[in-house]
């Protein structure tokens, strides 16, 4: 074996991300700059980060037309991973735009922030394409450790540190389950490759326990009920750009990785897992939506809503068909736009006082429409999209998911999901009502002036939510062609 004989092409986007991370990191130790210059340097680092993300996205798009390839059998670069990469890179780019101005309010550690963000991106990208248990485990840990730190990045705020601690403790706990599951599968088959596991699994106790423990671990990572305890706290306490990024990126990568793992569980028929996933999905949607009903903080409301959204996305895995996977990918794109957009708007409603739980409360949005009509409209669009109101992206995403479920014979699950959507409409609409129907008072609060970078992020998210809705048919079809190429 020599280095040039390796298939580096299949890892190009990830390598670009890692290299960018290192470049960003090195600037932390180069020269001393004054306070004023540090903010400028922070912006320069954000630009470097964005360029790295764009190059990686460009390379991923170029790979779309190439046949699937692998790197020493450890990772699989196929349509699935390419689309996942695009979702992750999109989420990261929007998060960088949000962080542009947000970060300077509480820290000067820009290079640490962006390099950890990029490492998390790399971890997610590797996680989504890994086809071997050791690689899967390490990638998962890269993204987890980066996110633990990013969650606690706001040193001025106790809630941020608290969120970080809770996220860390439960995340580390979940790693224990994942690695035990992986060990049992290794013991069962004598190999850590998914393909070997699929071929040699005994289907006995070790297979069953191994997959069950992996499922528990992944349920923690995608914040599925009953393994969601950390989610509201971590999402509410983390700096908002980080919340926006991890609510999309972690879910996307973990869902795709879970899909790959479960596909290798062929010796235990997929139906067994489908039932476990269906129950997980049912609980996740219902608990997430019901808990969101009584929230007074928009950020915490969005945290519970993102639990519920994970429940919808699990439906794609329950179906386990091409259609289900396609619908899940489509929903991930839609979710990236609407969820990050909503968090972007929420970040503008936060108070500047770090001593209190700096938070976007519902009261801050009271009568927002008469103060900031465009911002209120944008937030309303995201809320409508999350609630699944046509013709926005969220509506079509849900439609495709439910359709895939019915197609695969999960009519009851689709019905439950529809009922859940109706419940969720209540709290999403409540935000809209507060903004449009009520009169502004002293509690109404918007961080002014609204930074250009946040406006850019919101505009991109609005366009995404609208265009994905209007062009849902063609974009869903193009996802389909690529996904079909994936072996089942």
């Amino acid at each position, binding site marked *: 074996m020599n280095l040039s004989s390796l298939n580096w092409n299949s890892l190009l986007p990830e390598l670009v991300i*890692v290299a960018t991370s290192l470049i960003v990191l090195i600037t932390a130790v180069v020269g001393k700059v004054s306070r004023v210059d540090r903010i400028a340097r922070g912006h320069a680092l954000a630009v470097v980060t964005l360029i790295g993300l764009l190059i990686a996205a460009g390379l991923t798009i170029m790979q779309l037309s190439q046949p699937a390839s692998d790197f020493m059998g450890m990772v699989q670069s196929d349509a699935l991973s390419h689309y996942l990469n695009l979702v992750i890179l999109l989420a990261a780019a929007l998060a960088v735009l949000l962080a542009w101005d947000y970060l300077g309010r509480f820290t000067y550690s820009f290079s640490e922030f962006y390099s950890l963000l990029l490492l998390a991106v790399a971890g997610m990208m590797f996680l989504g394409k890994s086809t071997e248990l050791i690689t899967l485990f390490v990638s998962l840990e890269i993204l987890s*450790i980066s996110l633990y730190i990013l969650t606690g990045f706001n040193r001025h705020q106790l809630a941020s540190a608290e969120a970080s601690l809770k996220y860390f403790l439960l995340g580390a706990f979940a790693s224990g389950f994942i690695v035990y599951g992986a060990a049992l599968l290794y013991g069962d088959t004598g190999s850590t490759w998914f393909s070997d596991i699929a071929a040699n699994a005994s289907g006995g*106790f070790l297979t069953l326990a191994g997959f069950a423990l992996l499922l528990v671990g992944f349920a923690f990572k995608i914040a599925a009920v009953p393994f969601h305890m950390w989610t509201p706290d971590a999402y509410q306490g983390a700096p908002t750009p980080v919340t926006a990024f991890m609510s999309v990126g972690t879910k996307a990568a973990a869902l795709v990785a879970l899909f790959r793992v479960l596909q290798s569980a062929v010796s235990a028929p997929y139906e067994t897992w489908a039932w476990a996933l269906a129950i997980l999905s049912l609980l996740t949607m219902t608990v997430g939506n019901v808990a969101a009903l009584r929230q007074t903080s928009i950020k915490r409301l969005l945290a519970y809503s993102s639990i519920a959204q994970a429940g919808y996305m699990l439906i794609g895995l329950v179906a386990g068909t091409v259609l289900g996977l396609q619908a899940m990918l489509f929903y991930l794109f839609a979710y990236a736009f609407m969820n990050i957009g909503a968090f972007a708007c929420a970040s503008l409603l936060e108070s500047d006082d770090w001593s209190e739980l700096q938070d976007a409360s519902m009261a801050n949005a009271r009568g927002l429409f008469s103060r900031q009509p465009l911002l209120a409209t944008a937030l309303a669009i995201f809320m409508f999209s999350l609630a699944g109101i046509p013709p926005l992206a969220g509506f079509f995403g849900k439609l495709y998911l439910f359709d895939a479920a019915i197609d695969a014979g999960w009519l009851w699950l689709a019905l439950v999901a529809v009922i859940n959507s109706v419940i969720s409409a209540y709290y999403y609409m409540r935000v809209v009502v507060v903004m449009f129907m009520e009169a502004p008072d002293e509690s109404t609060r918007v961080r002014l002036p609204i930074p250009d970078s946040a406006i850019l992020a919101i505009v991109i998210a609005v366009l995404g939510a609208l265009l994905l809705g209007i062009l849902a048919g063609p974009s869903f079809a193009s996802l389909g062609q690529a996904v079909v190429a994936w072996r089942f």
Partner: protein
Amino acid sequence: MALLLFLALALVALLAAVGMVTSRNAVHSALFMLVNFAVYAIFYIMLNAQFLGVVQVIVYAGAIVVLFLFVVMLIGGEIGAVRSSLRRYTYAAALILGALFVAMIGLGIAQTISTDQTVAGAPAAGGVEAIGMALFTTYLLPFELASLLLLAGMVGGVARRYKALDED
């Protein structure tokens, strides 16, 4: 002979583990941890994984336990008794979950794996050379990813240490 040794070590490991999770004082916990992890090193050597045994001693006894002790020294060792520090039902639930877990996995393993599955003689791949070859060929990617993991941990540690904006 080997059976007796195994049983004795297993007993030590289990007792140390119980000590680890029930001690009132974090220093005791950390010392039980040292005992526990040292026993693992002996298990690894019994399993013919000598390299892992040595690494276990160096990394755990040499680094992790010391790290724990340092932190305990900085922030105080009183970590509270298990029972008093929390509501009784949580304790019961934890106990039941733990017991169920052992029962499930233990019974499952006992039933599915034939007890005569033993290997005689030294395996071909126990030594440093074989591991090194594997790490730098087949497992090159996870090996390199592990370096990214350590980088993330390092940057994370530095970022946590950084002073906040106004303390500058």
